[in-house]
């Protein structure tokens, strides 16, 4: 994929390196030449010095044929406008903007931009570590509103059917791993001691899930 990144800070440089290591064609834009030092010597992509809204700069970065664009500069407004330019003026198929303010992140989702709010995600994650250190989260979806957790079946719930754990709209067991093989449970699937469950749970329902699991 051809990817254009605006902003070579901590996140931008790491993102550029990750994508580049996976073999993607990366162009990264920043106004400060020194910021490119963060990329390290092994970075193979293009470093474009200039202002992120400048037509010339964007086109030099190859935005006209880019498959994806990400704005990760320190300013929310700059990221919003950068993402809108990529989407509206250049029709880039995948556009992501990092937005610190969670309220704004919601508003800009309405304008068709995928937004990631590290503020909300980070707060949700830290809260979870403080309050639910015994829950092993494998994956956070969205900004942490839904978590995918892994739980081993222990005697208090062994012998029950997996649908006993499900709560509509809040908790769902979607996979059971037994003796190294995974399957999707149906109504009536009995859980054995030692089974590994994968459960999708709304962040707000974690305490309820803990009660059900007897944790």
């Amino acid at each position, binding site marked *: 994929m051809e990817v254009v990144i605006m902003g070579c800070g901590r996140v931008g440089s790491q993102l550029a390196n990750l994508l580049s290591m996976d073999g993607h064609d990366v162009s990264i834009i920043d106004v400060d030449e020194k910021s490119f030092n963060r990329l390290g010597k092994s970075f193979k992509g293009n470093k474009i010095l200039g202002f992120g*809204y400048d037509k010339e700069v964007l086109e030099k970065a190859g935005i006209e044929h880019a498959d994806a664009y990400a704005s990760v500069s320190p*300013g929310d407004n700059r990221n*919003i406008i950068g993402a*809108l*330019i990529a989407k509206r003026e250049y029709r880039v198929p995948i556009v992501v903007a990092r937005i610190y*303010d969670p*309220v704004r992140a919601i*508003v800009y989702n309405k*304008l068709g931009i995928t937004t990631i709010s590290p503020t909300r995600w980070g707060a949700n994650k830290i809260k979870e570590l403080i309050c639910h250190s015994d829950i092993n989260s494998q994956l956070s979806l969205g900004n942490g509103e839904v978590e995918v957790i892994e739980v081993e079946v222990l005697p208090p719930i062994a012998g029950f059917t997996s649908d006993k754990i499900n709560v509509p709209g809040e908790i769902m067991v979607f996979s059971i791993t037994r003796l190294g093989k995974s399957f999707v449970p149906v109504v009536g699937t009995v859980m054995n001691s030692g089974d590994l469950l994968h459960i999708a749970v709304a962040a707000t329902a974690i305490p309820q899930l803990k009660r059900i699991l007897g944790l």
Partner: protein
Amino acid sequence: MNILIIGAGKVGTSLAKDMSSKGHKVSLIEKNETVCEKFGKIKNIEIIYGDGCDPLVLESAGIKVTDVIAAVTGDDEDNLVVAQLAKLQPNRPRVVSIINHPRNEWLFTKSWGIDAAESPTSIITKLIEEDIDKK
């Protein structure tokens, strides 16, 4: 008319005073607290301390009942953000703005929610060029 002005810089302040003296109801949002405090009391102008790019600030400043929004901050990205938020409102207020840097002129169009925009740098440059040619 209800006029909502974002940015109490030279343009915003002058515009607010002008429009209020003509009898319009003006709300002026400014994110610098000291500027707000110094502004003083002027008839028909309500000064609001806050970030005009924040959807909640715009809502409490009455964006839903305003006829015109003037996005006249010193940051082009802020002016563009205000325009995007304005066009999400059901009342679709008219949006006028200034372009601080001529390189951003290509973005201040209808498709970006801007109904009219002026570029002081471009205007002044043209005028000065004319002055030079006059001899």
